[in-house]
């Protein structure tokens, strides 16, 4: 089985690109692959805990918890991008790591495929 690295830069709720990325990651995990997800720029919002699910907005927190529990998924948020937006370590959802941008590049090193989904 392979390793997929997904880098996402789109905002949460304001764009459905993050939803696509999470659903793709989930599908890959279910097929037995490992997935690394990197969120940078506005996409760091995905790592914020306490997201409330409304019918009118996409809600990904529950799905992310299931994916973390699979043991085949790791996700990291750009620390500087998050801090610049006022998301601090204590605001981060369980399971997420926070690192600098070199984490993403390192993940691509061992990836079989890299899917880079640009920002808004």
């Amino acid at each position, binding site marked *: 089985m392979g390793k997929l690295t997904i*880098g996402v*830069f789109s905002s949460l709720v304001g764009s459905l690109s993050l939803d696509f990325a999470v659903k793709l990651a989930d599908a890959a995990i279910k097929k037995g692959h490992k997935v690394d997800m990197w969120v*940078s*720029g506005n996409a760091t919002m995905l790592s914020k805990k306490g997201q409330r699910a409304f019918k009118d907005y996409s809600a990904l927190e529950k799905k992310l918890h299931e994916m973390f529990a699979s043991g085949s998924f790791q996700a990291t948020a750009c620390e500087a991008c998050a801090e610049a937006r006022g998301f601090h370590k204590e605001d981060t959802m369980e399971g997420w790591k926070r690192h*600098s*941008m*070199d*984490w*993403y*590049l*390192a993940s*691509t*090193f061992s*990836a079989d495929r*890299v899917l*880079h989904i*640009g*920002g*808004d």
Partner: protein
Amino acid sequence: MATVKLGFIVKSLPYKTEASRLALTHAIASQTVEIYLEDGDMVEPVVAFIGDGVLNCLKNQKAMNMYGVTSLEQHLKNSLLLDMRVLICKEDMEKLGLSEDALIMDAEDIGGETKANIAPFSEIMKEMDSTNHLLFF
């Protein structure tokens, strides 16, 4: 020991979104990626500006005066200072009426020795073909 080559393809306008800034900061992050890799393994970035993205390379940017943020000019110069390969699409320059004089071609003022390359799109395509992964910004 292995090297993975990443192509950072910048097609976004400067400052309108943070895309081009993130392209350059991610490319520059290749300088510290070794902390996550085995000895001898490395990531080699190449940055190519295409389409509207060539406007990121304009000289005399006033981002600090206008927005209070570091300029993309400074990030581009830092990339050249780190000997990163930087390509600027020749056809897109011509389309936008830009001459080489208008663009940041080196980082000599901060001690850099590497120069940016104005290249036809066919050469940029070859460069893209030679990368392991492409990242579009």
